[in-house]
């Protein structure tokens, strides 16, 4: 187990270098001058452009730029935006909000999705099953911005700029609604399939109480695909939710990346996305380790 974790952690290094380089190249390779449109209809003063290009190493070749950037990154300096704001500050302001939103969304989709999935999986083709099927189909077919605006206007939701936990419940529901539907359906199929598995029949034959059969034997084995889904979903949620954040004017990480891609602020985009890559890699590692906990047949050596 320890060796496996170590090996996975070592794999992070090339992945980290590769992704940051690709992202850096892509952002800076956008074929236009980030300072061309900065002064509206007038061209910017050439001294201003020259100073900015020098400050952001834009006149070096791409590889030198990247190495300079990486060097700074290792000293904990994420660089600064064109307007002189530290990227570290931007991330520190936005990330806690995104994490709060992601956790709320995950809890909502996990709890509601799992409960609905288990109930319908156990009572296939009943009234509840059909209700959940129709409801999830409805949720899946609705675009997020629609659900978002309806709930925002319907409940008169306003998220204050610091985005405390209470303000984020409805946005979290909107964000998690689609995945909630998937979780419910995944769980339902998995439960329905495993109900006839040998180990469940054995457990029932041993005379175990129904709650234990379902809660421990059946659920633990059925939940593996759901955990995979939830794990990667959390990784995706941590990457921010541009649409949901936009609808509720939440200043999380998604909007930050979106705005800065538009403004060609490569320093911000690379900084944030680098962090996201790390989060995503960590999430997938945790998911892989969870498999071993859930399913005794899976061992990592």
């Amino acid at each position, binding site marked *: 187990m320890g060796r496996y974790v170590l090996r996975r952690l070592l794999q992070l290094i090339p992945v980290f270098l590769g992704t940051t380089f690709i992202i850096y190249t892509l952002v800076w390779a956008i074929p236009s001058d980030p300072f*061309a*449109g*900065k002064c509206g209809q007038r061209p910017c*003063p050439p001294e201003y452009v020259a100073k900015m290009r020098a400050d952001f190493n834009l006149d070096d070749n791409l590889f030198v730029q990247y190495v300079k950037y990486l060097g700074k990154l290792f000293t904990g300096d994420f660089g600064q*935006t064109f307007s002189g*704001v530290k990227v570290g500050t931007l991330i520190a*302001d936005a990330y806690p909000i995104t994490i709060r939103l992601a956790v709320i969304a995950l809890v909502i989709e996990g709890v509601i999705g799992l409960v609905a999935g288990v109930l319908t999986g156990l009572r296939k083709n009943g009234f509840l099953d059909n209700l959940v099927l129709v409801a999830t189909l409805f949720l899946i077919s609705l675009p997020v911005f629609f659900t978002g605006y309806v709930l925002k206007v319907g409940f008169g939701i306003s998220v204050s700029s610091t985005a405390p936990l209470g303000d984020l419940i409805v946005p979290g529901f909107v964000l998690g609604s689609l995945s909630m539907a998937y979780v419910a359906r995944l769980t339902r199929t998995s439960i329905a399939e495993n109900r006839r598995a040998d180990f469940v029949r054995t457990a029932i034959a041993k005379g175990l109480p129904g709650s234990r059969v379902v809660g421990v034997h059946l659920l633990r084995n059925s939940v593996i695909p759901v955990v995979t889904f939830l794990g990667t979903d959390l990784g995706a949620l941590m990457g921010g939710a541009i649409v949901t954040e*936009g609808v*509720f*004017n939440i200043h999380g990480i998604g909007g930050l990346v979106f705005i800065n891609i538009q403004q060609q602020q490569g320093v911000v985009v690379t900084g944030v996305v680098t962090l996201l890559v790390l989060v995503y890699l960590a999430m997938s590692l945790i998911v892989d380790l969870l498999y071993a906990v859930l399913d005794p047949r899976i061992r990592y050596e």
Partner: protein
Amino acid sequence: MGKRRKTAILVALPAAVALLATGCGGGGGGAGGGDSNGAVSIYGTEPQHPLTPGNTNEQGGIRVVDELYAGLVGFDPTTAKPYNLMAESITPSSDAKVYDIKIKHGWKFHDGTEVKAHNFVDAWNYAALATNAQINADFFAQIQGYDEVHPEDPKAKPTAQTMSGLKVLGDYEFQATLRAPFSVFPVKVGYEGFDPLPDVFFKDPKGFESHPIGNGPMKFVSYVPNQDIQLTRFDGYQGQDAVHFKDVDIKTYSDLNAAYSDLKGGQLDFLDLMPPAALVGDTYKADLPGRTLNSSLIDIDAIAVPYYVPGYNNPDLRKAISMAIDRDGIIKQVLNNAYDAANSYFSPSLDGNVPNSCEYCKYDPDAAKSAFARSGFTGKLTIASNSDGGHKEALTAVCNSITKVLGVACDFVPQTSLGQFRSMITSHQATGMVRSDWSADYPSVEDFLNPIYKTGASSNDATYSNPQVDALLAQADSTADAAGAIKLYQQAEALIAKDLPNIPLWSEKGTAGYSSKLSAAKLSWKRQPDLPSFRLA
């Protein structure tokens, strides 16, 4: 220390009680009404540059800079008429080349230091110096000695640190000598870039940026990137544009629709533009009963027809295109009536505008057809623009109108970003017509001609060059008498309207809305909330 504080509280407490008592008594009968210590929140976008006058040039930053600093001249929010704000007087010499500027006594920066003449001169010199790489440096180009602090060649080193044309004559008086006569200078100094800076700025410009100190009606409290900027009233302010509330929270939005629904829900107090969806069928008027505003923005949207594009150097083609555009129809069908059709090269609300001075700006399909036949043009027409910001729909409609009337193919060519689009124009690589919109930096007809139609001017997108126009503009610049200057600018416009380097399309009407927390508000000609006119309900 502790003891002194206690006595301070003992003194302050009865005073506060007394204030409260009088506040309660007088509140009902007050003329203006409302809570003068309340707070408002307004829509904002993330500033693109540090919040200093020399380095701010876009809406999101100007919104803040306008409140933090006060310049020599202010403008009426509705009529755009200039008035002396910090200036006691601005006296031109008879040839409009030397300006003697006296400033008012006793005005203070937010740090308590007095605003003196050298604060203006130092700020202007700082902004103009090439090595400081300030974005508004060009605005000082008319001052004598600018070419020494800011050489034409970007690689050359400045040969002086200060402009020879600026002289401090005392604590409250300074003199500006221009390189050539320029009669609009007293209006131009109302642009944000000419605001003064306190002495602390020059000691540590970088540190100043994180906590700017100005001389304006509101002082800086906090700035959280991508969240909000908070300002509070500066009680020592002496200008006529003081605010009648205490705090303002400028909230950063990335989505206009989100801002609009916050406005409807009362979580935002002022929004200076309506999302397109709210304009359809005047929805916003029903959503915000009695709380909508219209103002006349000083701007003009046009399409430039570059002379270097093969086949475009053809007056008949230009006339044909212009007369083939059904401006009123497009405004009604595509632009939700949020614009006024252009019939001159100026914004309609500008002093000196002559209605219908552009004779070819009228929709006239028959005349357009015969002009097009005379032009002998063959091939395809294109209009390029960045496609975000709603430009695509309007310009596609323009193309459709041209095709319908002239029977010539016309395509909208989208560009991915404003940056890419502008660099295509400045490097003269356009292969067709291009969108060329203009908003006034300062309210003068001069600002609608010199930067756009003078030979080699910075925003001359059409690469237009007419020696007669250049001569008239130079003559108008050097006419000290304002009315006489306007006449000459009008003559220049008449010549331009015959050549049609740009084809004027329309001017935007400003549309804003406010929450029920406010009882009065105004939108300025710059599309900025006019905070001095805000009254809390």
